[in-house]
């Protein structure tokens, strides 16, 4: 069509169709029928079809070494050269499918969820912008364009979190998300620059070649890797930059599902997966610790949250930590696998929560109750009978995230835990990573079932609200059903049927590549280790999942263990968790406030001293000088010289006109006098 190569054409269309939808909607959306939502939905559905055809092409090709790279020269200054282009391999294709699938679900779900919103067309426009930028990240073949799209994703996240910017909390949350991401992106940029200075290219393949040829090595490479990882820490909301993601839930719920659960936050994981060959052993160790710690840390916060979206937000942070942990221990394919499965069930959970919030909202609206929080789980309970589809789909997704066999989460979580266990077996000094991994698995199972039990089971806590609850319309339940069915294991193990192993098209087609850093363990060593640890990891993960679910069942379903008693018994820890370990408060006290004080001091120097005295002094001197020169100019030059010429001409005319008497004889006399004078001169 455009270039003649189907993969290139499809990539181009996948990239630019959402951008086109964005441009049409942002400029003409208001004037189009239905505010232009059909433009966006149409564009994203074409994108989905193209991604699916690429995916089917990948399956029918069945080649794990498939790689397709096209680029054009963007900047060519001889020594400084940047090529932009696509690198399409199996990871890209899977990721494209995830992005376009979740994005199209979001577009469809929002048709009902956002109905009647004041900025409906802008909402759809920004969804298009986001899809464009996310596909850009996925398709990038070099760090430069990846960085550009990385920032574009940040912008669209900012715009969508702040969609309801009349609410102060939403405006603050969008600012917080953007600024926190900036902190990570500075590190990311430094990492890019270190790598570029050493190797002289942005292209991934050339970077890997450069690293294996030891153009850059040792601590500098570790530093560069950690810089790149900082970008992922910001975007994937890892500790200590995790603070923005829970606040980002101020955005519309479908946006939370698309960006802050399934795709955008996974961009950080995708980056580490893409750049895995660049990381040294030291960098990977730090990555593993950051990921593992985030996984368990966020999970412990999720236990005590009462806002349904906050629970899911911390759960997302925790699951992203899992993926990062998998990259850190070297089993990055497992991390990517978890990204894929997590995208499906977490998006399903978010849509489910959106459906519940939507129902709550409408019920409260009919009662004219504007004080009750529609997101607070303490106001719910027993919704199972009223919302059967939402309830059953969310339960399926919860089973998947808890790591119950027969569901997708079991396979991917199991792979990560096996990788972690194998790593710990080889490096016993890092035993705590295993504790992080299995501990987080148990806690995840616990709080996710707490969410399900509190929302859908038990007695309705607010019977009046309960009476007004209805199942959401079909545009909202279809995405739920689609994503819930994609949470079953079968979609990931085809063409085989083995609910207990991740053995299937995914593992066949996406193989770990060797690290480019000399001396790192090879992909085969890691794979063998994982294989060895697999059975033990599976047993342990089943055990911890059962433990978590069982405890949750006793506490929130049977109520034979009182949650309140336990909260009181563990008062200090409970409060720590409820208040998110006081991270926002401490950041405020130890980072923002000192920074603000410094800013105020600098502002004082700048405004009160520099500006008022130095700059204003300049102005004062200039004012006086201009007064003097003004007087010189006006009085000296203008009034005296310029006007003087005119005045003298005027005066001369006035005097000379008296000679024109009109008397003939006078004129004659003058002529006579003239003649006499001439004669006198002639004679003498």
């Amino acid at each position, binding site marked *: 069509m455009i270039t003649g190569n189907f993969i290139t054409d499809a990539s181009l269309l996948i990239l630019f169709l959402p951008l086109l939808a964005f441009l049409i909607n942002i400029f003409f959306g208001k004037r189009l029928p239905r505010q232009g939502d059909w433009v966006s939905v149409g564009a994203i559905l074409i994108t989905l079809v193209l991604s699916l055809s690429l995916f089917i092409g990948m399956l029918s090709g069945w080649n794990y070494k498939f790689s397709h790279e096209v680029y054009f020269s963007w900047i060519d200054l001889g020594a400084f050269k940047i090529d932009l282009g696509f690198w399409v391999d199996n990871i890209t294709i899977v990721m494209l499918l995830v992005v376009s699938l979740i994005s199209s679900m979001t577009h469809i779900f929002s048709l009902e969820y956002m109905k009647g919103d004041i900025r409906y067309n802008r909402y759809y426009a920004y969804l298009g912008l986001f899809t464009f930028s996310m596909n850009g990240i996925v398709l990038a073949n070099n760090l430069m364009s990846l960085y550009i799209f990385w920032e574009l994703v940040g912008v669209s996240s900012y715009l969508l979190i702040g969609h309801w910017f009349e609410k102060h909390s939403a405006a603050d949350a969008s600012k917080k998300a953007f600024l926190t991401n900036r902190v990570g992106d500075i590190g990311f940029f430094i990492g890019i620059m270190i790598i570029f200075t050493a190797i002289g290219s942005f292209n991934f393949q050339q970077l890997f070649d450069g690293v294996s040829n030891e153009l850059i090595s040792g601590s500098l490479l570790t530093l560069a890797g950690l810089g790149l990882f900082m970008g992922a820490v910001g975007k994937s909301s890892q500790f200590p930059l995790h603070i923005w993601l829970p606040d980002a839930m101020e955005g519309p719920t479908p946006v939370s599902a698309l960006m802050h659960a399934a795709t955008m936050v996974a961009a950080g994981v995708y980056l580490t997966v893409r750049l895995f060959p660049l990381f040294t052993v030291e960098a990977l160790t730090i990555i593993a610790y950051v990921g593992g710690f985030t996984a368990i840390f966020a999970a412990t916060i999720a236990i005590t949250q009462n806002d349904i979206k906050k629970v899911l937000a911390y759960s997302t942070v925790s699951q992203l930590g899992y993926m990062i942990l998998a990259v850190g221990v070297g089993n990055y394919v497992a991390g990517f696998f978890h990204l894929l499965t997590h995208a499906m069930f977490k998006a399903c959970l978010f849509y489910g929560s959106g459906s519940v919030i939507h129902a709550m909202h409408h019920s409260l609206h009919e009662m004219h109750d504007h004080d009750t929080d529609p997101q607070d789980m303490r106001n719910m309970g027993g919704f199972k009978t009223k919302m059967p589809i939402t309830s059953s789909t969310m339960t399926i997704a919860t089973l998947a995230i808890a790591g119950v066999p027969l569901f997708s989460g079991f396979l991917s979580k199991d792979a990560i835990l096996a990788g972690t266990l194998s790593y710990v077996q080889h490096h016993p000094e890092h035993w705590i990573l295993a504790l992080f991994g299995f501990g987080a698995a148990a806690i995840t199972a616990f709080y996710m079932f707490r969410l399900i039990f509190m929302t859908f089971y038990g007695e309705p806590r607010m019977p009046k609200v309960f009476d007004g609850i209805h199942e959401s319309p079909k545009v909202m339940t279809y995405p739920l059903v689609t994503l819930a069915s994609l949470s079953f294991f079968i979609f990931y193990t085809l063409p085989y049927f083995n609910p207990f192993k991740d053995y299937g098209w995914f593992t066949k087609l996406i193989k770990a590549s060797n690290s480019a850093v000399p001396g790192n363990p090879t992909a085969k060593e890691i794979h063998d280790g994982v294989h060895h640890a697999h059975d033990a990891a599976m047993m342990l993960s089943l055990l911890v999942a059962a433990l978590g679910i069982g405890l949750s069942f006793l506490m929130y379903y049977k109520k034979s263990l009182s949650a309140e008693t336990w909260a009181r018994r563990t008062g200090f820890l409970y409060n720590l968790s409820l208040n998110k370990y006081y991270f926002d408060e401490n950041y405020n006290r130890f980072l923002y406030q000192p920074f603000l004080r410094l800013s105020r001091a600098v502002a004082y120097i700048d405004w009160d001293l520099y500006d008022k005295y130095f700059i204003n002094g300049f102005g004062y001197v200039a004012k006086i000088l201009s007064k003097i020169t003004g007087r010189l100019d006006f009085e000296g030059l203008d009034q005296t010289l310029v006007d003087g010429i005119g005045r003298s001409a005027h005066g001369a005319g006035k005097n000379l006109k008296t000679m024109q008497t009109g*008397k003939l004889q006078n004129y*004659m006399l003058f002529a006579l006098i003239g003649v006499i004078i001439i004669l006198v001169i002639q004679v003498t």
Partner: protein
Amino acid sequence: METLSNYLLISSILFSLGLFGVVTRRNGVAVLMGVELILNAANLNFLAFARFGGMNMSGQVYALFVIVLAAAEAAVALAIIINIFNNFNTINIDDVSELKQ
């Protein structure tokens, strides 16, 4: 006594008298008479140069021309004066100063 300088002296006296009349007289006709004196002074000069200088006959011919010219001039000038009188009801040329300023 019949020398050129004597004739020239007389003619210059005549010229000066004519000029004096032209410049000082207020009566238009008197001014014209002054002009006649000046013309006649010029005639005297021509004749003197014809007699004592090298002009010979041409001096006398010029004098004839001047007489004819004086006659024509007098006719035209008197016509002007009559018109002035018709317009201003006076022939005092000091009162005819429309060209002033």
